């Protein structure tokens, strides 16, 4: 039973006819041509398929596409399209990623964390990224960079407020 769904994908409304057993990951990659969510395990273990669903980091391989009808989905394609975000810039500057296959998921999980908790502790960062497997980096540079970006944004914010007032 094919059903049409409409989602707000990276800010644009996209429609697709999907079967009830199609995962969000397959629809994103196969029907919308959005390729940054990767399939690493197909069973929710690795987090390479992470996307933001109404702002929350979720595994798109565990979600059926018909479930997200009417919701907002953000993939890495929708992050820093015009200009890389502070997080992306810091990841580049610190030579954080190696093979880069986990990067889309890591960046989205980090972004979701910082949106909800702008000043996380190291343990909170590790907790938030524990669902995203990386075999190359040993996680250390990823965790430290997320912490550094959080710290920097804390310093910036009061100044920005003063400028506005």
């Amino acid at each position: 039973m094919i059903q049409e769904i409409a989602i707000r994908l990276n800010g644009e409304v996209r429609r697709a006819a999907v079967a009830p057993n199609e995962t969000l990951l397959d629809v994103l990659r196969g029907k919308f041509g959005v390729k940054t969510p990767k399939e690493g395990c197909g069973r929710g273990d690795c987090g390479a398929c992470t996307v933001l669903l109404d702002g929350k980091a979720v595994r798109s391989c565990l979600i059926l596409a018909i479930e997200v009808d009417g919701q907002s989905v953000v993939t890495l394609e929708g992050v820093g399209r015009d200009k890389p975000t502070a997080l992306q810039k810091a990841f580049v500057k610190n030579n954080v990623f190696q093979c880069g296959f986990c990067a889309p998921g890591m960046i989205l999980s980090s972004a979701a964390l910082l949106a909800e908790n702008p000043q996380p502790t190291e343990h909170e960062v590790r907790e938030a990224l524990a669902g995203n497997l990386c075999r190359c980096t040993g996680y250390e540079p990823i965790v430290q960079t997320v912490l550094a970006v959080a710290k920097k944004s804390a310093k910036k914010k009061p100044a920005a407020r003063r400028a506005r007032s």
Partner: protein
Amino acid sequence: MSKTKIVGNSSVRVDGLAKVTGAAQYVDDLDFGPGLLHAVVVESTRAHAKLKKVDVSAAAKAPGVVRVVTGKDFPYMFGLYMQDRYIFAQDRVRFVGEQIAAVVAETPEAALRAAKLVKVDYEELPAVLSLADALKKDAVLIHPHLDRYNKVPWFFPRAGTNIAHWRKTRKGDVEKGFQQADFILEDVYTVPRYAHCPIETHAVTGLFDLSGRLTLWASSQSPFAQRNVMATALKPFGLTHKDIRIVTPYVGGGFGGKAGVSMEIIAAVLAIAMKGRPVKLNWTREQEFMNTSQRQGVIARVKMGVKKTGQIVALEHTLHWDAGASAEYGANVVNAVGLSATGPYRVPNVKIDSVCVYTNMPPCGAYRGFGYSEFHFGLESHITRVAQAIGMDPVKFRRLNAIQEGDVLAYGAHMNPGDLRGAIDRVAKEIRWGKKEKAKPGKAVGKSLACFWKAPAMPPNASSAAFLKFNEDGSLNLTVSGMEIGQGFLTVMAQCAAEVLTVPVEKIRVETPDTDRNPYEWQTVGSHVTWSCGNAVRAAAEEVKTKLLATVARAKGLKAEDLYLADECVKSRQDKKFALPFRSFVIDGIMRPNGNFIGGPIQGTGMFMPEFTSALGDPETSQGGHPNVHYTVGCAGAIVEVDKETGKLTVLKTALAVDAGKAINPELVDGQIVGGIVQGLATALYEDIRYGANGRLLNPNFTDYKIPTALDCPGEIVPIILETAQPDGPFGARGVGEHTMVACAPMIADAIADAVGVRLKTMPLTAEKVALALRGIDYETVKGDSLGFCFRGRPCDYPFAVGGAK
């Protein structure tokens, strides 16, 4: 060595922005349009059986199916070092998971449904699931035609046995050495199989176009080796090297698992079967575990003799490897260990037997460390025990016996430069060696230090090449065929070219391989590409430099020897004001007063082959050849907390020092150290592969086969880089990528022993084993029958001199 400006800096990765924006494409991200077909493979459910009948009739009629292919369609063998692997199983299957047939369909779902309709009739054969069974006198032969297989000249398979290769190394007189020893210790260590676990599984799309040319888009560390293996195996289709093209976009992790050829050749023949339409074959995570390659399991007996004063006088090291159903790559791992299993120590009398044994388990091959992690576990554990037995501090013992430049190696050649003692000193200081740490209630804290070395294992004629060409604006394109598997290869190559040409790294685009367009590279394995391809890039840049100087000299009537490169210009020592920017002439040339132009597009090529190596050592002793180009040395240390009740291990701190010769990009070397330590700790602490008694892998997924998450990392990791130049390396560099995980397992075993006095000799070193040992229970007596490799029973009872392995 003259001072460098770009080499030695932590330049930002050339692929950094592509990877954080998602622009970086991996194979499965490429689009092939609506004509794309999808393949699913039918796998053996038996470890060893005759194939009586493969009935594909129901599958062929299933909706969406366009073709079902079996071994009858493609009865060919392949392999990198030895052709002992089948594209599809022929008369028999040799492991659970082996490919028997493949269904090609319009959609992945249709292919999957139809694959389940293929009926396979088996006639069971006795499965060889233990090394002792494989080696006994009347053993069931897994490869009855072993003597007919094509192989490299440095492999010595034994026809009529399950021995795929036996590397023997003999130096001095080991019996005499043991007679001179004041103390001898002999023991057995076991290391199970491990899985690579790149987050990207193997993925290939193949197209055999209507003109008869075959293109494969593959996630691979070895595009040229793949082309060569396929050209050899697929000769019956009239395919020559020029008709095969391998394109490799970014690879989502390799770790050796994407070296050589495994499932890629299935996609190749499916493409041939479906001429004119692209065919995609992606491995599932389960297949990634079961049917690519794994790290071989090994049981090793170490016998070491030492003087009271601490000098090692004799070493006998016997290793039996579980290679699985094919040894086309794994036998070279066995070979590498057979040459190097002394570890980084001076040992005057050596006897090494490294034996590669076929079993009915999934095939094994290259894995980061190439056998060195496996033998270091036993050897380094043993060294600590020997030192303690003679009352010597284990760090002092290692320092005393540490190999140095010029020392005679086990196979007779001489050791290259490398500061192992410096590494030991730095790590000992970092972990406050000798100082007892305070432990929390219920816990004990232990310390350890383990050394490592590793050489690239490669054929003596493994070579690299590079092309470099200028663009109008003075930027450059560099093409190489080393693979960016995450280590930062492309960036380091850009830095090598940038250094010679005085061009910023950002102005060099380095591209991933395409065998049609990029120059030759043997493979990206063995931590050798920085060294080997770096030399080729440097040579290409030197050729470009020569052309830049010659063009300017000719156009301007100057002497080339007065000219030099600086700040993207050709400058003159005679005239300080003279500075001709590259962009002004590298494509369009230089105009003379009469309107003629001198020059033309400037480009350069470079190549490198280690012309001093040879694999022609004596098969009985390994003396006389020069199989390894060089060794990289270093050591790692740890401070580990052990929970005395639960056995839980917490790594509080680790430090690792490696002699990189020259760190072309120190931050990337740090990345290799930190990532390598965590991967090494994973093999020690978490990863626990299990096979059932029928040879079936029980935990082919990340739920049951645990790799570390961000929560499972050490409290502190300190990377230390030493730089004793490698004379034949680019700017003095040698490889470091694999080395960083090699010492991790013995380091943990030693730290546990130091903390709670328990000596674990079987990996992995789980909390369960520690807790059992703390209660006085021998793990070997309670381990059950789901095991990590082809070894049953108690290690101390293993008959090393069984049957064919006498």
